[in-house]
């Protein structure tokens, strides 16, 4: 995973709450067996509408999505994160993320920055009034800056550290291989196994 320190790109205001993973990428687009190529499915139903924000210049070139509360609810599909990243997004801002989506973002290297709703509203107004405004997201400082507006965002310290260092979770866990082996040695033999009975 690439390390994430700061990112600057065009901000895209998405004035919708409860953007579920079926909206981010419908199930029919989940059939690929790679991690790439999911950008076609991103918001596919909404993109069929010409007035949708991603169909407008300069928002179509955006890389910082500013969305309503409860972003990423529903399915566990990490394809939702890949679709956003494949399209070109590096950051999603919302006042609340669904747990699984937030976890998937952290694993794949998409920054899910939690910003208080009043600050999200300020960002929306600014981005709508001045389309094409660049937004700088600084993970070290935990700030989002657009023109003269700077707001704080929240992210748990462990995820922040992992993103800053670009660390792979499996590698981190395998540092504790001896703990895993010890746990397994103590597991009762009656625990279920999946080989056909």
């Amino acid at each position: 995973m690439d390390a994430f320190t700061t990112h600057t790109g065009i901000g895209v205001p998405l004035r919708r709450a409860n953007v579920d993973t079926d909206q981010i990428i419908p199930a029919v687009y989940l059939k690929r067996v790679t991690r790439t190529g999911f950008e076609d499915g991103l918001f596919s139903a909404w993109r069929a509408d010409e007035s949708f924000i991603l169909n407008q210049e300069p928002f179509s070139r955006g890389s910082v999505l500013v969305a309503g509360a409860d972003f990423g609810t529903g399915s566990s599909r990490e394809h939702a994160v890949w679709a956003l990243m494949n399209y070109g997004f590096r950051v999603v801002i919302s006042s609340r993320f669904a747990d699984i989506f937030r976890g998937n973002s952290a694993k794949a290297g998409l920054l899910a920055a939690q910003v208080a709703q009043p600050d999200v509203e300020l960002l929306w107004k600014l981005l709508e009034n001045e389309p094409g405004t660049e937004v700088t997201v600084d993970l070290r400082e935990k700030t989002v800056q657009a023109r003269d507006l700077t707001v704080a965002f929240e992210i748990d310290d462990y995820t922040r550290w992992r993103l800053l260092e670009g660390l792979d979770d499996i590698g981190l866990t395998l540092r504790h291989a001896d703990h895993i082996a010890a746990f397994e040695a103590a597991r009762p033999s009656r625990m279920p196994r999946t080989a056909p009975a």
Partner: protein
Amino acid sequence: MARTLAEKVWEQHLVRRGEGNEPDLLYIDLHLVHEVTSPQAFDGLRLAGRKVRRPDLTLATEDHNVPTLDVLAPIADEVSRTQVETLRRNCAEFGVTLYPMNHAEQGIVHVIGPQLGLTQPGTTVVCGDSHTSTHGAFGAMAFGIGTSEVEHVLATQTLPLKRFRTMAINVNSADGALRPGVTSKDVVLAMIAKIGTGGGQGYVLEYRGNVIDNLSMEARMTICNMSIEAGARAGMIAPDETTFAYLEGRDHAPKGADWDVAVAAWRELRTDDDATFDAEVDIDADALTPFVTWGTNPGQGLPLGESVPDPAAIVDENERVSAEKALAYMGLEAGTPLRDVRVDTVFVGSCTNGRIEDLRAAAEIIDGRTVAEGVRMLVVPGSMRVRFQAEQEGLDKVFTAAGAEWRSAGCSMCLGMNPDQLAPGERSASTSNRNFEGRQGKGGRTHLVSPLVAAATAVRGTLSSPEDLA
């Protein structure tokens, strides 16, 4: 110190307690795998030269993509077929047991785990599917994970997890029963409407109370299944005699002396009397009637006797905008009685309501009646075993005699990855779990209902409960 059920299971699986900001590392007892969320995970293993650490704790099946008609022919959709074939290759290469299409043990992951007796009290269960919360009905800690986490579990049989908070959902009625025509689906839809689609975020839910005590395992699974629709990754119910009776004798349940040891351990898996939850929610089950959704998220639901709500009456601006968008998408007018809403399709199935008890409930209503003109009813068993059992009981004949279609096992129209989809503008009454825009097909409109409401709706052609049938 007094502990909740969830805290007990957590502590029993602690491989290593995190220091400082670090998450805890938990051991995973059962990893269920399907074709959609696993290919990139197996690829990751190959790239890193890693193996599946515990193939004996891993089980794969094909469910999301599989057709439910013409199941002996090759899958017609080429991309679906590739995904299924990729799973077969990966399972062969990494030594994972796979129940493919047409195998007697094939079915929706969340139906086959319990049915095989693999889902046991006090275990940790994960799957690259958010409805893994289903398995919590056995007192397991079970939750959905993304593909990177699937790879992590395949490689290490563990997951780093941040501690969660606990929420009790107390469901009680005067006599511990639900009113006639009310099911556990109505309980969970009412719960989600009450706390909202984000109300459970960061929590593990524990369903308790005299109504829960009296529910069958199937009904408990329906409730735990939809915990994720309230934003909670997991929902649990303490194991009891009902749980033990369900498990005893199943293929992978402990046998002989192991059974007695296991049951003794399982009896300890109850929230201590003096333990406290971080939050509590009470559901008055005496006040519950059949529930349906009117909007585009599972929290937008109401009792069937009510009317489509008026967004103008909603104070919160974001909620109001959400409701306006939902009604526009659903093609509904505020003030329309929900009972007047006409459907094109009725879907009975899914990991929420595709078990034998659900099919029996729907069959009992439809028996001797006919599906309304212009309505298509699809009945899709959750697994091949459920299908065989239903056919043994003659339920398939009851459905087909009424004009419904009897299909083979899979996720089917719950998410329309196979050919079972709604056409744009079509409206369904569906026993599944999500009414998101386009969930059952692009432009499709979904009303979530119980199997009883589904069957009554099929007969009348409008959203109905059994009491509406003459």
